[in-house]
């Protein structure tokens, strides 16, 4: 029989009390809640996570190296495959850099359509994230609701661009095609539908006590830490920093539309959740202002056969994708192929936040935090 006194003495003699054995466990590369081939090596103590070590490289396709052998128009096609949920915004970032190099002036029609398509993509990306967050927290039904409404948006995009996911729509000098005749009508239908559904989602998931308990005060990211880790997008805004390129450095027609930048206060998973749900509403607001008065004009201001010779200078284009700031650095060398291309992808920086905020929490907290960081793994490895 173990005497209570002896146990107590033993606990006091070991510094820090009785210790349990720590163990390592591989989360991924095949794991339901790492959303792709991300591998996290976890140092665990029972249910508590002590350390998180992300291991990358499982979906590296050397997009940057391949881009050195393609011209500015062709690079756009590769960027679809990075952050596939905001492919139009990736295209836009490359287009911005190339347009800066070739000094192309765009007409208002192109800018307006680009903005509308980017915001539609942002909505569908956030809807998908919302559904997947439900699955990560065990509520499978939300996944189907999120996907159902996302499908309506991808249907519209498919009608215009011919693709549902890898749109490949925004090109240097304009757009690939003009918008479909039904585009305006169907976008209005979807907006009317989503307005009702968003409120339903709030009652289904956001107001659920269990969800609030799972997200509030979990994975707290302070604004200092968020800035020093280089995180952007909803992750940074959830921590209380109102950095949104659409406001700070407007491109497209963002300068002339009204919208708010939702900002969190605590920096926990709940703030990141709330910021994204609010961003869906703001994106709808932006589209509503633009959809009725798309200016007339050409959808491409550059001849398709025009050689895109990049002068020997470096160019930088950056946009706010659904996950944060995507920067495209292009170094020209008087040839069509750039000398060097680099992508500053938002997900890479957002991922490393997990090493700072997950330790000390439970295993389930790690899953919740990872879900609210909203990572797209192909964008991390590129």
């Amino acid at each position: 029989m173990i005497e209570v006194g002896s146990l107590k003495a033993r606990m006091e003699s070991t510094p820090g009390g009785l210790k349990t054995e720590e163990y390592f466990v591989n989360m991924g590369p095949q794991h339901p809640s790492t959303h792709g081939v991300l591998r996290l090596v976890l140092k665990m103590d029972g249910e508590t996570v002590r350390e998180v070590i992300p291991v990358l490289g499982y979906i590296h396709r050397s997009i940057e190296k391949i881009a050195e052998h393609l011209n500015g128009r062709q690079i756009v096609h590769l960027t679809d495959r990075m952050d596939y949920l905001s492919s139009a915004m990736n295209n836009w970032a490359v287009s911005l850099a190339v347009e800066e190099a070739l000094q192309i002036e765009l007409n208002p029609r192109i800018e307006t359509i680009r903005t509308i398509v980017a915001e539609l993509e942002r909505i569908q990306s956030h809807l998908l994230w919302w559904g997947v967050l439900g699955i990560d927290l065990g509520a499978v039904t939300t996944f189907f609701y999120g996907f159902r409404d996302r499908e309506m948006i991808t249907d519209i995009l498919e009608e215009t661009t011919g693709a549902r996911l890898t749109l490949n729509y925004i090109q240097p000098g304009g757009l690939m095609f003009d918008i479909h005749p039904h585009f305006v009508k169907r976008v209005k239908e979807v907006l009317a539908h989503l307005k009702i559904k968003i409120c339903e989602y709030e009652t289904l998931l956001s107001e659920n006590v269990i969800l609030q308990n799972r997200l509030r005060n979990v994975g707290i990211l302070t604004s200092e830490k968020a800035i020093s880790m280089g995180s952007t997008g909803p992750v940074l805004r959830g921590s209380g920093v109102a950095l949104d390129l659409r406001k700070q450095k407007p491109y497209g027609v963002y300068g002339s539309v009204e919208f708010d930048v939702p900002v969190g206060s605590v920096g926990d998973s709940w703030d990141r959740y709330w910021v994204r749900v609010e961003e869906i509403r703001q994106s709808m607001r932006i589209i509503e202002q633009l959809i009725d008065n798309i200016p007339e004009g050409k959808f491409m201001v550059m001849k398709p056969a025009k050689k895109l010779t990049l002068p020997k200078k470096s160019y930088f284009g950056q946009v706010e994708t659904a996950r944060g700031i995507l920067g495209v650095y292009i170094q020209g060398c008087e040839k069509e192929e750039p000398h060097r291309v680099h992508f500053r992808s938002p997900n890479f920086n957002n991922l490393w936040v997990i090493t700072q905020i997950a330790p000390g929490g439970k295993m389930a907290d790690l899953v919740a935090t990872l879900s609210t960081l909203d990572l797209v793994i192909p964008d991390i490895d590129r």
Partner: protein
Amino acid sequence: MSWEIQTIADRAAGATSMAEVGAYLVLGVVLGLAIVSLMGLILNYSERKICAHIQCRLGPMRVGFHGLLQPIADGVKLLFKEDISPRNADRLVYIMAPFISLLATFLIVVTVPFSPLVQIADLNIGVVYVAAVSGFGVLGVLLAGWSSNNKWSMMGAMRAGAQMVSYELSAVLALLTVVLLSQSLKLSEVVLSQEQGWWIFRAPVVGLVACVIFFVASCAEINRTPFDLAEGESELTAGFHTEYSGLRFALFFLAEFVNMFLVSAMLVTFFLGGWMPFHLGGLTGFNEVMDLLPPGIWFLGKVTVVVLLFMWVRWTFPRLRIDQVMNLEWKILLPIGFANLFLTSIVVLLDLYLF
């Protein structure tokens, strides 16, 4: 109306020849097996259909009319799958675990009163037996996780062990309130004691509170969302049965579905009058109209409603975290359970029934 209770065990005891006793024994075993396998099939199908309709899908539609034969097709598929056991697994325990899980289920089926005439055995310590045997189920889960030689399975098993053992306390406390009210441990007498009205209505408030506690606790005991931490698909991939395949996996699956039926049956028996029709005290005319439906139909109808409730909860709520699960049990449910038990004793002493 007076009810005549006759279980299969009673009939075997009153039999005149050994052959008759043997026949009743066979009947009992066959009935138990039939209930287990039939419930597995029906609940599997209905869960898939119901969750599909909650999620704006159709669910199985290809095999048979509206996919009615889907569970059978699934069963055949699982039968033919390769039976894998991981390297360095504890072979004996690994093979045994699903059977232990199913055994616990099977042992409870024996006591369920389906109707006055359909019950395999009516033990005079029925409540104690049910509480004891249902604790057996956690053993299968624990052994499965332990023997799989997999860290995720191990975590699932540890979660399941902690959770199922804790929630059993609340479940038993809730059952004890009914034992106080009905003043019997025998399941048939618990049902008979509700002739004036079901305990959830007849015992003022305490019945309802006990019923809710039992519902939550049994939800946790059968590992369904919001308490499905042992499986925790998005955290532990599949928890304790990650490494199982083929028939052994099917057995876990079967045990899970039949367990859902059993806790619903127990909830119905203890709080919703079992097979007893809906009675309201001395309203003889009303009661006689209610008696027109046979008790077996009443029982199955009530069980269906409770099962639907379980499914509705499962496909709506997110999952709790392990420390929240334990807090809910030890800091909320258990104190309320004790207070409720105390209040019930006052109700019984002062005869404060509603009708």
